[in-house]
């Protein structure tokens, strides 16, 4: 459904600022595909290329079987785009915004109401309120409705959950799940690694390079090292101390734990515990854990 080949894009004079380098991605029809990466990785740039807003310097891309450069006019009818920044008319009401976006695609709210029904029922009580006066979560829902109202084949969502509370985020992902059932291909970007597991397949992006493209499960299973979660009284000193331990590849903070990465079978739980004990740390806790997407990301980033 989406094929990206050799896409590169630079900004600035003489193109010193490399935003994307040699990107390859392919997204299948009906897939919920996640583009995961930190801020500034190039996610939005890739979105803008695929939604025909800017031109790539190199390479080609097809969306819904249409070239993003040559067939951009046709393509615009088939894609829905929800930018990262809320960009609807703040001075128009909820209903007016929706009606306007429906009308410029030559359709009506009624025609595709079934697509947005689940989301719109929550907005309905506020339908005469101006969009600018909605809460953050409601704005996201309205933006999603507006991007969906013309029944796009492919939906591009650029960081839809950034700055949204945990409950709304969860709700939002449930909505995406339902949209997938309708057969809409969804291409979503997010800086939150924990959302990756909700996608069918993901691509990890960093500094304009795709690090990996896989299903979340396979990505995690491709993590070949042992991983330990460690807790002690002085976390920062413990991190430095653990780096001295033989066969330890990497130690990094992860929530309330330190994650200790080592080659498979070279380091044991007890060894870490004893090392910390003998170095004078207290309240030590060492657990053998499974890698998360974020661990994979860290791993790929360093290799």
């Amino acid at each position, binding site marked *: 459904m989406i094929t990206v080949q050799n896409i590169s894009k630079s900004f600035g004079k003489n193109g010193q600022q490399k935003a994307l380098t040699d990107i390859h991605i392919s997204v299948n029809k009906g897939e919920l595909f996640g583009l995961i990466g930190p801020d500034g990785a190039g996610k939005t740039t890739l979105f803008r290329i695929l939604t025909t*807003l800017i031109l790539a310097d190199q390479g080609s891309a097809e969306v819904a079987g249409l070239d993003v450069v040559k067939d951009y006019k046709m393509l615009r*009818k088939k894609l829905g*785009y929800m930018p990262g920044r809320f960009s609807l*008319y703040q*001075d*128009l009401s909820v209903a007016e915004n929706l009606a306007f*976006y429906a009308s*410029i695609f030559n359709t009506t709210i009624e025609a595709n109401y079934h697509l947005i029904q689940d989301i719109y029922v929550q907005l309905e009580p506020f339908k005469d309120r101006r969009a600018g006066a909605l809460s953050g979560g409601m704005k996201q829902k309205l933006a999603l409705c507006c991007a969906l109202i013309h029944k796009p084949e492919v939906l591009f969502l650029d960081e839809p959950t950034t700055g949204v509370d945990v409950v709304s985020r969860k709700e939002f992902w449930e909505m995406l799940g339902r949209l997938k059932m309708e057969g809409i291909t969804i291409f979503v970007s997010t800086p939150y690694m924990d959302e990756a597991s909700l996608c069918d397949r993901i691509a990890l992006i960093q500094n304009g390079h795709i690090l990996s493209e896989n299903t979340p499960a396979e990505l995690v299973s491709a993590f070949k090292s042992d991983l330990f979660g460690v807790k002690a009284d002085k976390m920062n000193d413990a991190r430095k101390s653990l780096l001295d331990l033989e066969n330890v590849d990497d130690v990094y903070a992860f929530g309330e734990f330190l994650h200790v990465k080592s080659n498979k079978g070279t380091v044991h739980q007890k060894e870490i515990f004893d090392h910390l004990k003998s170095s004078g740390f207290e309240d030590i806790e060492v657990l053998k854990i499974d890698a998360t997407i974020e661990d994979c990301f860290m791993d790929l980033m360093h290799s």
Partner: protein
Amino acid sequence: MTTFIFILKKEFRQIFRDPAILRLIFIMPMLQLIVLPFAADYEIKNIKIGIIDHDHSDYSRTLVSKIENSAYFRLTGYTHTFKEGLQWIEDEKADLVIEIPHRFEATLIRESKADVLLAINAVNGTKGNLGAAYTLGIIQQFNQNIRVEWFQMPEFNPEPMIDVTYTSLYNPHRNYQLFMVPGILAVLLTMVGGFLSALNIVKEKEIGTIEQLNVSPIKKYQFIMGKIVPFWLLGFVILTVGLVISFIVHGIVPGSNIYVLYVFSALYLFAILGFGLLLSNFTNTQQQAMMVAFFFMLIFILLSGLYTPIESMPPWAQVVAAFNPVSYMVEVMRMVLLKGATIKDIWPHIRIIFVFGVVLNFFAIYSYNKTN
């Protein structure tokens, strides 16, 4: 076409929902047309005058009372030394000091001539010039009266004289307001047509809605027309409101060929909307657009002949004025409202403003394609 109607609907909805725009459309012309022509007036009144009378004679008192009674002057006070008079000018207590020398009357009678000294603060050149002119006028009249008193005038003037009779055409009372009102109307049209439209487009860029429109099948010309048409119509509303106000307040009766004004305004708005579009292509925030608009507005107004005649500007400024669309609108407004000009009379203006419209809009659309 239906898409275009939806776009228009949306634009009008937004315009009429914005209280700032509504105020701008109805209150701005009212205030500008009611207040400005009365206030921004070249007739200078309340010139502060200080009097130094060393003579204290009949004649000097007559002269002083004539000056005092004139509507143009306001007396600061009397003093005995020229030094203090100068100090008044220094302290801005007086704009003008008149010194009548000792033995003014006696010298005048004996030698048939006498001196009077005028010291004028010329920081504000116009005020200085006019103050001097008014004073000289009064002194001359005083002079005339003395001559009548002294001589029995012969029945026929022995010197041949040309008697000048004049009539002021188009503005019989040489009323400054009649001159200003049409000009202010032209500026109002420019504000609405050129700058409101530019701000409106830039606003779409600023809040990001233009991206949403760009990924939709809306065509560029539909978007641009959607911005131009509402402000084009608003221009006519402002013009009509302005004409009604100038009729009620200033008694300017638009003649039967008022349609000439509407025809020209239609072309003018087209040109100035192109300018607004051009402006919006090179700015990204409303703040930037505002600052650039302000810069152009100042030049447009000062070099439009609104206040000072273009003919009296230096040649280079006249060249700039020739490239200033506002100057043509100001001129046509005055021609139609004061002289009742016909289409034939303003034909050269129509041709020029049409060229402006084509060129500005061409560049606007060209740069729009390039920057987006």
